[in-house]
């Protein structure tokens, strides 16, 4: 399909484990965003990439969270030493550039037991 693809769609893991969440943006989109949506809340900004570099990582909650986009396309969000409070839906979005509409994937539902 031509949309933003996120894998896995669901991830269940134990507290303390390491997880990686993957995002394949729409082809040609230079901007990529990660958001986190907790139950009953709207999506909350985590980090924004323009090309390969993180242009704004002000939303990452702490240093257990890290994201990369080495070739300016696929991005991986990495969470170390997971905690129960990390349980949420992690959403990825991409756009053609600044001030263009962001197109969201269906998210990865992360559950930390």
């Amino acid at each position, binding site marked *: 399909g031509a949309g933003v693809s996120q894998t896995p769609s669901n991830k269940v893991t134990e507290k303390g484990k390491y997880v990686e969440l993957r995002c394949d943006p729409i082809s040609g989109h230079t*901007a990529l*965003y990660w*958001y986190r949506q907790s139950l009953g809340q*709207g*999506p909350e900004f985590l980090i*924004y990439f323009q090309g390969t570099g993180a242009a704004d990582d*002000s939303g990452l909650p702490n240093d257990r969270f890290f994201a990369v986009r080495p070739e300016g396309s696929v991005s991986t969000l990495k969470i170390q030493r997971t905690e129960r409070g990390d349980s949420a839906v992690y959403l990825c979005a991409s756009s053609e550039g600044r001030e263009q509409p962001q197109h*969201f*994937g269906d998210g990865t539902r992360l559950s930390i037991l």
Partner: protein
Amino acid sequence: DQQVKQNSPSLSVQEGRISILNCDYTNSMFDYFLWYKKYPAEGPTFLISISSIKDKNEDGRFTVFLNKSAKHLSLHIVPSQPGDSAVYFCAATLVKTDKIIFGKGTRLHILP
């Protein structure tokens, strides 16, 4: 603190009538406002937007109104259809940034 507020968690509207979803914001530096629609187990889908220099934007059945002095915007859907049943997020972006700040959402139920 919640910079984008949607004070109605849910709203029920008869099919064919007008749906009005409301949103308030606190930050006067917001320069762009957006509405997203979300179905269960899917990501949010962009619906309509409005620049802070405008007071109205219309796209088919959807119209967004912006009242800057009141820091209030609303989404009107007319006529409402069964497929409009979803969660609607009001959102905003700050000048010179690209991160979207979302409200908590309003669940819209279109009744047959």
